[in-house]
């Protein structure tokens, strides 16, 4: 098992190298000159050229890449073109808010999603099933920025329970977490329901029933665990996506995380920031996939690691 994990971690290195090359190329292919954006809307050509030289953007692209990778190996992500501040520092301060936002919205999604999934599967074709699945369709379909603004209107403007924007206290997490979690909860609910329905047809469930276990006990002791494999896969992927920061939600709630930083970086063609963020997201995904694979083993011992 540890051999398996070590091997997987080593395999990440070439992947990350490829990521740096691809991201670097793509970022430089986007039309738009960062120096022009840094220089501002009133700048003349001479100013733009001066800034280009100052930022090292006048050098050949291959040279720029090797400078970038050279610094990266030393643990230096470079400085933001826009603010000239070190990226690593900014990334540290912005990672935690996004991380906690992800955790809270996943907890919300997991509890609500699995709850609805179980209810729907146990009372199949009942009112609760239809209601649960209707709620799930609505949850997936609602545009998140709209939901965010509506929640803000209810809970901040009308009721005054939570702040509209910012992160001055734990309250700042509530609305963005729910907004972000609703869509994921809906997906989890549907996955849980369909996986449970399949599992509930299995022989061992019938055996359980024959033994006289209650439906609840069967659900908790046997069915749910076996139905979790697809749910965990999907949850892992969603976790990865959210950990990248939600561009829309973070913008709506003025949330100081990675997502709002990324959109700002793209708008400003802040190459080093975009590169650093994508590299971080890639790493996060690789680690999450690894974690998901490890969890499979616990859920279904038939899945073995190829040491």
């Amino acid at each position, binding site marked *: 098992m540890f051999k398996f994990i070590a091997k997987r971690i080593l395999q990440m290195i070439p992947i990350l190298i490829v990521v740096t090359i691809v991201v670097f190329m793509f970022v430089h292919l986007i039309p*738009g000159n960062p120096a022009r954006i840094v*220089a501002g809307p*009133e700048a003349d050509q001479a100013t733009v050229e001066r800034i280009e030289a100052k930022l090292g953007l006048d050098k050949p692209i291959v040279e720029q890449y090797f400078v970038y990778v050279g610094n990266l190996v030393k643990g230096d992500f470079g400085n933001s073109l826009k603010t000239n501040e070190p990226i690593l520092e900014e990334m540290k301060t912005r990672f935690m808010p996004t991380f906690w936002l992800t955790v809270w919205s996943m907890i919300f999604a997991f509890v609500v999603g699995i709850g609805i999934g179980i209810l729907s599967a146990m009372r199949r074709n009942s009112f609760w099933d239809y209601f649960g699945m209707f709620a799930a369709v609505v949850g997936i379909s609602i545009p998140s920025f709209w939901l965010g*603004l509506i929640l803000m209107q209810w809970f*901040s403007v009308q009721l005054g329970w939570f702040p509209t*924007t910012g*992160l001055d206290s734990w309250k700042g997490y509530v609305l963005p977490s729910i907004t972000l979690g609703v869509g994921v909860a809906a997906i989890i609910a549907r996955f849980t329901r369909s996986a449970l329905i399949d599992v509930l047809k299995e022989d061992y469930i019938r055996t359980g029933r024959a033994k006289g276990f209650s439906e609840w006990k069967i659900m908790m002791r046997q069915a749910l665990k076996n139905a979790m494999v697809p749910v965990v896969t999907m949850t892992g992927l969603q976790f990865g996506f959210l950990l990248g920061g939600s561009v829309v939600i973070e913008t709506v709630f003025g949330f100081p995380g990675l997502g709002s930083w990324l959109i700002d970086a793209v708008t400003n063609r802040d190459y080093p920031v975009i590169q650093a963020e994508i590299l971080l997201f890639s790493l996060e995904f690789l680690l999450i996939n690894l974690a998901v694979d490890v969890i499979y083993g616990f859920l279904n*011992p038939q899945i073995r690691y190829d040491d």
Partner: protein
Amino acid sequence: MKNMRFSFLLLIVALLTVVLAACGGSSDSNSSNESKSEGKKAGKDLTIAVNQNFVTLDPQDSNNTLDNSVQKTMMEGLVAFDENMKVVPKLATDYKVNKDATEFTFTLREDVKFHDGEAFNAEAVKTNFERVSDESKGLKRYSLFSNIEKIDAVDEYTVKFTLKNSFASMINNFAHPAAIIQSPKSLSSGDDVSRKPVGTGPYVFESWDSSDIIKVKKNADYWGDAPAADTLTFKPVVENGSRTAMLQTGEADFAYPIPTEQIDALKKADIDIENSDSIVMNYLSMNVSKKPFDDPKVREAINYAINKDDLIKVVYADYAKKATSVIAEKTQFYAAQAEQPYDVEKAKALLKEAGLEDGFSTKIWATNTTNYIKAMEFIQQSLAQVNIDVKVEPMENGALADALWAVEDEKDAKVELYFGGWSPSTGEADWGIRPLFAKDSFPPNSYNISYYSNSDVDKGLEKALQTSDEEERQSIYTAVQKTIWEDQPWVPISNPDNIFGKKSNLDGIFLLPDGSLNLEKLAIN
């Protein structure tokens, strides 16, 4: 065995939950300190919600009005703009200009100290301007001061600037936010002035935190009238709906800009919404180097075919003035021009004369914000009436900038129609006209994407800079505006208002025509 594995998994989940709860808890207690100061707001702590993240607090290295607004709470210039964009004294009590507009001499206030205790004097001024006019420093506002040849501290409180060439508009450059003065000690200490500026202003820098919130506090030793607020908190909230919600909940005392769609809702919620004139010029540019826009008749026809009053209703909800020149009314040396009415029949007749009665196809570019897209669609529909088929092509800002300004040769320019905006941050005619209409301003040098050139305009612009005689300058700029107005490389459209919202207990807080915030007359009731 199976059970053991499951228990192990449960244990991990339980552990994780405990860790999360603990961290969650610690982050709560962490921030509860902050929320105490934030939650129990005394009346004198103001929160100002704005629409962009901050970039830098170094005025000489800033290129946007928002950063300037924050900087101006902490730092001041020798002269400044008043609410009509007139240049008024600030840290200087008086200034003199020689006839050729090559020497600018300022007499300084003697009762001013920087926040770090340093004295404000001629040497301090000299240090500041030597920094920004040094090309090797690579500061973004170098171009405003590149014309300075030398700076002399004549005596303790007199400083003289000598320019390389006559430049009568220079006094406006001194009133520009980029010319506000920082403590010479802070500039030489190696401290990062872009994150932590030191000036002479009514407020002192306090913090710039990881959420990008900037706080300043009252300067108890301020030389002028005591500032009204104890602290000011600037909070960037990019999303329009969220920013206006902050006004409704009272989390913000002042917010700008306010999108026109939200004005009614806010008025109902008892928020003061105010609007003021800006110097922003919105225009439809035509590339006169391209067919059929090289024909003045076609340009005139397009001008006749667009109903500007209706456009202003549709796009700006009436929060804009109709353009009456190629620069806005609050720009110095503005001169009103004869109005060209909306007249579709005349437009058709002109196109017929130009041999284009069956119309033609073209495309319009603009940035992809809601208002600009609306404006492009309005223009598209207007021109459809005269058989001109316009394809609307909204573009992302960076891509648009490349397509417009990065063109090396006139012949490679792909722009035909362009709906754009220009705000001359120096507040005077030269910067409102030269970058957009001078022959030397063809891309990539500057912003003349109409590729318009008229030697009368070029000569006038040169001449107006060589004299400090205000009347003479006015008459030159009046003639220049008339020439451009009649040549019609643009359809000048509108001057949109600055719109801001505030709590009703605030007075004397407003936006200057250049879009920057003015708090000098702030009163909290």
